């Protein structure tokens, strides 16, 4: 699903050159559930953003679902993001003046899906994250966990190939974090490829594979025994 070879990324800060990613090699197959770990500033978000086509690598190759991602125009990138990827952010990033259902329907709007189907699908995915009753509530009326569940529903709505989540539980308490992980595990069980960036070892343990970043390279890449979140919920 994802093939990354010798990926480099550096930021220029005035005259300084900050080399963040120094040759990443990563191969992720369909249906995997991978967590990316590493200390703060190690380049986790940078890597995820490149995978998410929100940012571009300097060197190296990146192939997503057999499509080489290189020198994309903004328009192409938007189309690919919409078609291939679902995003889940630490700060939820819901649009505050749209209700839950409208937020979930937004990627479908940009796909050109007709209204009626958008409505059906958004309700279907809200149902899936257990928020059917909250469809018409604004984000400000939802708890953090509920917001993140709406964000998950939104990420799923466009039926992407890969879900990308940058610290999806970073703003949540432990109990709510496990609830969210429970949802993600359910989605992964259905075959969806998921990438999660996290600080927390217990969250990483709920995935199936942990990639450790350090000093711009992958220090460790191991398959782990998945801890089911449902036992804590």
């Amino acid at each position, binding site marked *: 699903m994802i093939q990354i070879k010798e990926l480099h990324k550096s930021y220029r800060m005035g005259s300084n050159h900050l080399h963040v990613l120094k040759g990443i090699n990563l191969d992720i197959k369909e249906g995997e559930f991978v967590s990316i770990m590493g200390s703060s500033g190690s380049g986790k978000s940078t890597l995820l953003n490149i995978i998410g086509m*929100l940012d571009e690598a300097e060197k190296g190759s990146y192939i997503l679902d057999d499509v080489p991602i290189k020198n994309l125009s903004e328009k192409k990138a938007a189309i690919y993001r919409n078609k291939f990827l679902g995003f889940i952010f630490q700060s939820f990033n819901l649009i505050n003046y749209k209700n839950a259902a409208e937020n979930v329907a937004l990627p479908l709007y*940009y796909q050109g899906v007709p209204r009626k189907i958008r409505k059906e699908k958004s309700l279907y995915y809200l149902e899936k994250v257990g928020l059917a009753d909250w469809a018409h509530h604004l984000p400000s009326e939802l708890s953090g966990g509920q917001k993140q569940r709406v964000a998950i529903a939104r990420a799923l709505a466009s039926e992407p190939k890969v879900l990308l989540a940058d610290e999806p539980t970073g703003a949540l308490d432990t109990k709510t974090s496990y609830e969210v992980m429970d949802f993600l595990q359910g989605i992964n069980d259905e075959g969806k490829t998921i990438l999660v960036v996290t600080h927390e070892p217990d969250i990483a343990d709920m995935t199936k594979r942990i990639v450790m970043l350090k000093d711009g390279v992958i220090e460790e890449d191991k398959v782990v025994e998945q801890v089911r979140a449902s036992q804590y919920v």
Partner: protein
Amino acid sequence: MKFIFTRDTWQEIFGTIRKNKLRTAITVIGVFWGILLFIGLQGAAKGVENGFDMAFKDMATNSIFLWGQQTGIPYAGYNRNRSVRIELSDTYRIANQVEGVQFVAPRNAKGIFDGAPPLVVNKLKSGNYKVFGDYPVIDKVSKKKIRKGRFLNQKDIDEKRKICVIGERIQKELFEKDEDPIGQYIKISNIYFQVVGVYKKNNTDFFEGDNSVFIPFTTFKRVFNTGNRIGWMVIAGYPDEDIVAIEEKTKTLLKRRYDVHPDDERAFGAANLGEMFGKITGFVKGLKFTALIVGIATILAGVIAIGNILLITVKERTKEIGIRRALGAKPGEIRGQIILESVFLTLVAGIFGITIGGLLLSTLNGWTQSLEDFPFVNPTVSLEYIGMALGLMVVLGTLIGLIPAQRAVNVRPIEALREE
């Protein structure tokens, strides 16, 4: 362009507008004022134009009043201060020889420039009133409003009839309320005249008011013994002729005829109405032009205000736009939405302004209709102007929307998302 007509696009736009009610209102007010001013000024200028048109429509505005005075320069053996009296035959000469003259109306009068107003008597009632000796053509100089009977005609002139047309006030003062003056005889300077018509005051006469008596020019000549002399004449040029040139040529002709020094400015007096009306017309034109410029400038200012506020909004919405782009909004869609928002707000404000402006003008029309002498009639704005204003707003709205739209897509999604 298809996206303009889809319901979803508009739902997105209404969504953002509804969310930002205050800013929408503030934005709209600027353009609203602009178009209101535009419509109001245009309409008012049109009203003034119509008012003047109405007031002078029955009048030969491109005309000169001309009379003889006293010479100011000794010439050809004559002393200075010689009286020059123009004659009836001059009118034919001028009509035939001066280019651009439509007609010339000679006039005589008792009771305004020379002589006391003659006594007019009906049975036991009497009064002193101005008496004019006129040709029917005077009706073309200033249209008489005949209330009863008729005005002078050529037959009256030819037969030197002793008939008269009297003003409404004379009727009131000399006749009983229920008495029909037509066909009755009244005495003017002790001579009986039959009343054939009663006229009403109009706004464009110069001397007659509603208390004058018109009698045939030929009859006047006989009754008051004026010979060939005339009091003054009205020279009317064709509508597009240069009336100042006509005045010059006429004076040159008369100077030669009466042995007046070519540089003598005193010998002939003239009032050039054409010149005066030219100034009024120019004033109205200037008014319309100013109204146009001020209106367009205000609309422009309003649209720029919209652009500015959209720019601020785009800044405020950086994060939201970042989210939308992460979810797959293409730059074109973001741009299109912001431009549409700009055009939509501009148009809403414009239509609102046009409506209120129209109401304002119709109210103004209602008020001024009761003021009879006020030159303000039917203040309207032509559809062309409204169309032009709307077109201008769409164009300006689009152009000004381009700036915030470009700003919105210039921020890379990754940076937009980092924004707090």
